[in-house]
């Protein structure tokens, strides 16, 4: 895989950035909807900053799209976006024409009798994949696969961190609200399936 692939360092960096933005969220009063949106964008930005811009395109794509949406609409940014769209459409056209003439590597993997169908299917799926990965629009097929691998690895890590954070917060809020259920379980010594060993640090 290209670029840095240190998951632990990424998780800690992600968590650090996330906590900072969570604390600033806490300070301002928001509706639940506003808070949901704020946390989602904080998570995106934390992902991108923790990953860094070496070896992958998606972090920069996330950062540039979030900065353009958060700042007031600016003429130059609109122009940049339009230029990017034009470049993307040009690249897609070029690719489509080229794939029609020669054999792209994807077509080679299909049997010759169904090559045309396979090619169309692959092109359709590649288009979908491009939309799912930030910044995927401008990549060629090989880079797209590299990018997808990198992105999936970091999404994994993000999900793991978010799960642990919500578990920790839930335990904490359960403890502070003094629910009898949880304390009873502790006294009985029942081993919970998912959280048995994790009760100790608290």
């Amino acid at each position, binding site marked *: *895989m290209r670029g840095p692939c240190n998951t*632990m360092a990424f*998780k*800690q960096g992600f*968590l650090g950035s996330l*906590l900072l933005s*969570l*604390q600033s*969220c*806490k300070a301002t009063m928001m509706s*639940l909807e506003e*808070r*949901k949106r*704020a*946390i*989602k964008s904080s*998570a995106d930005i934390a992902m991108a900053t923790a990953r860094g811009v070496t070896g992958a395109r998606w972090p920069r794509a996330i950062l540039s799209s979030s900065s353009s949406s958060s700042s007031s609409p600016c003429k130059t940014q609109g122009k940049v976006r339009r230029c990017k769209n034009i470049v993307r459409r040009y690249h897609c056209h070029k690719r489509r024409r*080229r794939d029609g003439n*020669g054999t*792209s*590597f*994807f077509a*080679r*993997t*299909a049997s010759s009798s169904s090559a045309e169908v*396979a090619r169309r*299917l*692959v092109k359709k*799926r*590649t288009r*979908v*994949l491009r939309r*799912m990965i930030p910044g995927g629009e401008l990549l*060629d097929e*090989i880079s797209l*696969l*590299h990018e*997808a*691998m990198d*992105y*999936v*690895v970091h*999404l*994994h890590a*993000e*999900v793991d*961190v*978010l*799960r*642990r*954070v*919500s578990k*920790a*917060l*839930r335990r*904490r*809020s359960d403890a*502070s609200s003094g629910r009898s259920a949880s304390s009873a379980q502790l006294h009985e010594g029942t081993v919970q399936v998912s959280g048995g060993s994790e009760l100790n*640090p*608290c």
Partner: protein
Amino acid sequence: MSSRRGRITDEEINELISKLQALLPESSRSRAASRSSASKLLKETCSYIKSLHREVDDLSDRLSELMSTMDDNSPQAEIIRSLLR
């Protein structure tokens, strides 16, 4: 093929495909090992990324609900950091 990348060997492509397959959840690996088509692989990858996105969304929603019921914030940071050490 794109001239800017030079010639890509079949070996590199297969390596790329198997690496990507290794990342996807178990269910996809039980099928034919190296001969699964490119389109199937792309479909798996797309749906997996979609499900990861959905999970991140759900977790963020849960987090925002938890946060609105919390009073003090700083001890949380300590607990959470200790989870990752």
